[in-house]
């Protein structure tokens, strides 16, 4: 009798998780990092293995940090939007190339256009863990002090940019102006 109860028990546990999961929006993960400075790191850039990049190199009134990889299908979807933001709106975007292969990542940028100021090369995903990366693509909004203000999990679109990012950027820049 007891062993026949095992499936029912396992299912009960699963249902509990699914129930909790239902009320957590996977694309709006309340990152514990919001309001905190970006984690410190020092690694090589994507294009030049000999050049070191650290968290202090991320500069500007505000900046986006975009987590991407060539193995990530959704990153291909959002790429055009990123190119648009960087070319047409002059948005500074820093790339975090996550668990990727250097050659194919460089190839990708040549192929689809390079919207990034510079790319942080995170080969084994260590920096991604510090950032609390859940999966690619993700986009962080940071201010001039490197404080994270917003995090988007999933594909960036012009619509999301207008609705989620622009108001936050106006906040950041108006505070900075004061």
């Amino acid at each position, binding site marked *: *009798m007891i062993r*026949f*109860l095992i*499936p*029912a028990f396992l*299912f*009960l546990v*699963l*249902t*509990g*998780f*699914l*129930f*909790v*999961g*239902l*009320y*957590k*929006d*996977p*694309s709006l*993960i309340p990152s514990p990092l919001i309001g905190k400075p970006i984690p410190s790191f020092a690694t090589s850039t994507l294009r030049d293995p000999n050049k070191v990049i650290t968290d202090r190199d991320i500069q500007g009134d505000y900046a986006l940090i975009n987590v991407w990889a060539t*193995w*990530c*299908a*959704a990153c*291909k*979807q959002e790429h*055009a939007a990123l190119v648009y933001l960087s070319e047409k709106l002059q948005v500074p975007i820093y790339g975090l190339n996550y*668990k990727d292969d250097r050659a194919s990542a460089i*190839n*990708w940028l*040549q*192929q*689809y*256009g390079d919207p990034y100021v510079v790319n942080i090369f995170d080969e084994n*995903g260590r920096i*991604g*863990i510090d950032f*609390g*990366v*859940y*999966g*690619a693509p993700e986009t962080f909004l940071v201010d001039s002090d490197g404080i994270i203000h917003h995090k988007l*999990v*999933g594909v960036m679109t012009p619509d999301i940019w207008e609705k989620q990012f622009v108001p936050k950027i106006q906040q950041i820049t108006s505070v900075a102006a004061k």
Partner: protein
Amino acid sequence: MVAEIGQFTLIIALCLAIAQSTIPLIGAYRNNLSWMSVGRTAASGQFLFLFISFICLTYCFVTNDFSVLYVANNSNTKLPVYYQISAVWGAHEGSLLLWVLALAAWGFAVSIFSRALPADMIARVLAVMGMIGIGFILFTLLTSNPFERLFPAAIEGRDLNPLLQDPGLVIHPPMLYMGYVGFSVAFAFAIAALLSGKMDSAWVRWSRPWASIAWVFLTIGIGLGSWWAYHELGWGGWWFWDPVENASFMPWLVGTALIHSLAVTEKRSTFKSWTILLSIMAFSLSLLGTFLVRSGVLVSVHSFASDPARGLYILIFLAIVVGSSLTLYAWRANQFTSGGRFDLISKETMLLINNVLLVVAMITILVGTLYPLFLDALGLPKLSVGPPYFSAVFVPLMLPLVILMGIGPIAKWRRVPVKELFGKLKVLLLLGVALGIILPLAIYRDTTVMTAVGIAAAAWAILTALYAVLRLVIKRDSSTSFAKACSKIPRAMIGMVTAHVGIGIFILGVVFTSSFSDQKETSAKFGEEIELAGYTFVLESVSGVQGPNYQAMRGSVNVTKQGSPVAMLYPEKRVYTVQTNPMTEPGIQTGVFRDLYVSLGEPLNENEWGFRIYYRPFIQWVWIGTLLMALGGLLGAMDKRYRTLAKAEKKATNSNPVTQTTSA
């Protein structure tokens, strides 16, 4: 008006489902034949009214009735008519209607083809299917009504998602749903067995072909899904371990285990409670898949619109259906005594290991798919689980399965001496290993250990499957002719061999594609020659093309091999008029041994374009293998013994019970 008829018939179908789920069940307990027979009538009626409802929605699409919200959101006057029809199931509400229609179709099929079944069993089976029907029709009516009106009516529709405007997507969801929902029949049979306490060999012979047919649909559905991804997403891949794909793959794995376990239960009347559990699991995973896709708890490339209210509804429904059936299982399963004993080295053991491996594989995929959710619920930091995880855990589980697949069909029931097995198979084993080493070297002059192992496994699967059937012909009596020996091979055997050969061909495709694919993602000036895998690609021009509901830039790519022409390919970059997102439509030349696949990137300047070329060896074998698996399942389900049994039992119930001696 038509939309109201659709809505009204949907409500009638709900009422019939309520009747179907209660009256026959009460009849079965009271042994009242006329109450039991209500099940059949209600099942036919439910199917009829859902079919009318579905036709009504289709009519709204074809006539561009934008006063129906769902039509306005998913169609457009410029949409070609075949996509207007497939748009019926292009989004949540309509695909749910298709789901219930498929369920009713299975119920209808059961009511037709099972006239020879004992009346109380068929009453219980149809009642269980009626309950599932209630759940899903209510879900449609309460949270996702496709017939909701829009006032004032829209002037023009918002068009179907361009990703879904592909021939593959026209038939992929119906196939997949027929598979998903088809497991409800095996599920209903399992519940009926638990309720009645009867699970004899007749039960197994009845539920086995249903499980096989559901599995066939699911196989075709998954195959079409990956075919669609290959043709439409434009980056040459065919499987992405995406949550939505995993959701369909999990019931497939358990369904595979189920059709094997049913074989043991039929032949040896053992593994009974395990077979019941697998039947419950296969359908539960179909429901779970529906939950995962519809509730939005996971992020997916397929990203359908999601809504927590819908998620909660399905979760409650899932909890009631699965929870109560597993409780029933815990309560009643111990009464099924196991039949024959068997030794450690026997067909039973091999099928048991097969089942364990398949279920473990399913669990690893379940864990991988839900991992972000588990961590999130526990408040732990999140980790990403992607294709690297799945390939790392899945491949090692499949390898022993393929090895066993070669031995199992030849092994005897109960016990088989190791020496005898090894004696029969050592030549094939050596041959398989040799092919694994030689083939990649001969074709591509290159290999790795993993490639050799993969090809050897594929060769082993094909060789042993062929041997399993050929030995029946080779070892015939001298008195029987070759043709006669061939005709005596049972169709189930041919089906099994076909499916196993299909798996071998599938593995060949997967291994060759993943080992020897080549690609170039570069830019191309007009007329510039680009070399890849011995082929020369020249982008000759790019010109504007006007489609029915899109504008496209179409490239003309001339492919040659050592100067002789191979193909002209026309990759497109489409912008759909209404939804304005750009879509890549690759140009593909399909061949038996390789596909050439080009897709157009962005214009870099006046005469230079971003350009991707893929060389994909043996990729078609992936789908040929899948088709063979499906064909094998179909042949197995059509075995003569199921039909003769039906006839014999029918005769027995119709006439004198004394004639019942000849049933197979």
